[in-house]
């Protein structure tokens, strides 16, 4: 299916309805998650109302990593098979991943101040998430700094693949080192350690924001395809004139 969609014409035919479907799913699940987060989940025994921040923080962290997996996969596909659509997808996903990495750091910091007593600590999980955010920024800066599209795509793809090394560090930092950040309570082997009253809004938030992320990634990839088409037509017109 994915190799079929690598054809830009076919991608443009199917991606519009797909983006609408994911957008509609997000429009249903995200308000539902917010309702549950604020009106169904009780105040947490230790953290009180502050625990509600985690319903946006944890899904943001998941999407920052999910986005980078997408960026890495698209970059690999571009480097190996030279699919221009894969490069367009990589470029489309990077700002979205950066936005969610930023939200992870910011909401984590807002949560950390009242619960840990500090806006920031040099904990392995926090530091590796900051590195992930910097990889996103570095990728976007590199892409923007090179005028030659081919060279920019190739250099960006190599940088994105190097950054993949950081993903297991982000994920397993809480197990490999003694960190202030709590260990995984949902994405772990075995059952989640969280009570159902908190798990339901969290899973709804994960699902809703993931659907939104996919919808926006498709929208941005479509924009990139239109951009390439417009630039090619413009160049052709200039060559004739």
């Amino acid at each position, binding site marked *: 299916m994915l190799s079929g969609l690598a054809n830009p014409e076919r991608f443009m035919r199917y991606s519009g309805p797909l983006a609408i479907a994911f957008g509609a799913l997000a429009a249903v699940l995200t308000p539902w998650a917010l309702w549950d987060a604020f009106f169904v989940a009780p105040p947490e025994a230790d953290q009180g*109302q502050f625990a509600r921040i985690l319903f*946006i923080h944890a899904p943001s962290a998941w999407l920052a990593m999910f986005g980078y997996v997408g960026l890495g996969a698209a970059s690999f596909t571009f480097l190996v098979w030279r699919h221009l659509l894969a490069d367009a997808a990589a470029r489309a996903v990077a*700002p979205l991943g950066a936005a969610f990495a930023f939200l992870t750091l*910011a909401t984590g910091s*807002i949560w950390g101040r009242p619960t840990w007593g500090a806006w920031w600590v040099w904990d392995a999980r926090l530091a590796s998430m900051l590195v992930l955010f910097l990889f996103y920024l570095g990728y976007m800066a590199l892409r923007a700094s090179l005028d030659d599209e081919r060279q920019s795509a190739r250099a960006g793809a190599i940088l994105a693949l190097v950054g993949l090394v950081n993903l297991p560090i982000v994920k397993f930092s809480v197990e490999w080192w003694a960190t202030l950040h709590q260990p995984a309570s949902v994405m772990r082997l075995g059952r989640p350690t969280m009570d159902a009253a908190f798990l339901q809004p969290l899973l709804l938030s994960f699902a809703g924001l993931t659907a*939104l992320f996919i919808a926006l990634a498709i929208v941005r990839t479509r*924009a*990139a395809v239109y951009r390439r088409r*417009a630039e090619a037509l413009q160049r052709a017109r200039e060559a004739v004139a």
Partner: protein
Amino acid sequence: MMGSVMGATGFGPPIYYVGAAYGLAAIVIGAAIVLSLLELSAWARRARALERADAADDAAGS
């Protein structure tokens, strides 16, 4: 519960923190949605306008 304890120790009421986190999320996610849709609309219009101009040139040439 803990919110009132923290409020008494100078951290401020939880609503400030929860409001700041969700407000920031709304701004960032809202901006991502609006900017993505604007970008798609702008490039789609540009590409279609150039295609139409191309088609008009071809028709005039033939």
